[in-house]
C-alpha cells in the first residue's frame, strides 16, 4: 500500500522532471524557459522526494529528506529569481508572438 503510493509520487515527479527538460528545449526564449525549469523542476523534485520519504517509512533519514525538500522549496525560486534579475538588468528583450525563436 505504502509502496504503491510511493511509486505513484515518484512517477508524477519523474513526469514533471521530463516536462522541465522538454520545456528547456522547446520554448522559444530565455524567460519562458525559466518558467519550465523553475516551476516543473522544483515540483518534480519535491514529489520524488515525497515518494522516497513514503518508501523509507519513519526514520531519521526520512526527516532529513523532508529537510532537503524544505531547503529546495526555499532556495530554488531564489536562484531562478537571481538569474532572471540578471537577464532583465542586462536588457534581454522578452519574446512576443510572431518573433522568431531564440
Amino acid at each position, binding site marked *: 500500500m505504502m509502496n504503491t503510493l510511493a511509486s505513484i509520487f515518484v512517477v508524477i515527479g519523474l513526469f514533471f522532471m521530463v516536462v522541465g527538460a522538454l520545456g528547456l528545449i522547446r*520554448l522559444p526564449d530565455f524567460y519562458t524557459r525559466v518558467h519550465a525549469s523553475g516551476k516543473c523542476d522544483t515540483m518534480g523534485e519535491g514529489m520524488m522526494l515525497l515518494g522516497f520519504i513514503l518508501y523509507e517509512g519513519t526514520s531519521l533519514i526520512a526527516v532529513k529528506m523532508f529537510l532537503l525538500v524544505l531547503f529546495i522549496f526555499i532556495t530554488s525560486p531564489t536562484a531562478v529569481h537571481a538569474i532572471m534579475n540578471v537577464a532583465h538588468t542586462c536588457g534581454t528583450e522578452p519574446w512576443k508572438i510572431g518573433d522568431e525563436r531564440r
Partner: protein
Amino acid sequence: MSQYIVTFAVLIFFWYILSGYLEPFYIGAGIICCAIVTLISTDLLFLSNETSVLRSVGTFIRFIGYLPRLILAIIIANFDVAYRVLHPRMPIDPGIITVDTPFKNDILRTAFANALTLTPGTVTVEVVGGRYTVHALVREAAEESLLREKDMQKSLAHVFGEGEE
C-alpha cells in the same frame, strides 16, 4: 537574550536530526558547535533587534496553516505549465506586467516573491520597494489571476501580521 535561546534550541534540534547519535561525545560537540554558530549568526536569523520571539512563533504557526493552500496552488500551476509545454502548438503569449503591493516587511516581500515564482504562471523578475515586476507565460490570464490573487496577498499579509490598507 531570548532570541539567542530560541536560535540555540532550533539549531540543536537541527543537529540532532542530522546526527542521530546520542553518545555524550557527539552531543557535547553539538552543543559547542551550535553555541559557536549562535554567537556568529543570531542577528542573521532574526531580522531586527526589536522582533519579539513570541510574534515570530505566531507567524510560523500561521504560516504552516497557510501552506496547504499554497501547495494546492503550486500543483495547479505546474499542471498548467506542463499542458502548455506539451501541447503541439504551445499556446503561450508571454509578457511583462507589474504588481503593486503595500508590503513593508522584508520577509513578507520575499515570501510573496517566491510564492509568485512558484504559483500562477509567473516568475518574479525584479522587486523594488513594494513594486513587483513579473514575467507571465500567458499575459492576460496572469493579469486576471493577479487581480483575483488579491486574496493571496491578503492572506500572506495576515500570516505576517501586517494590516492591509
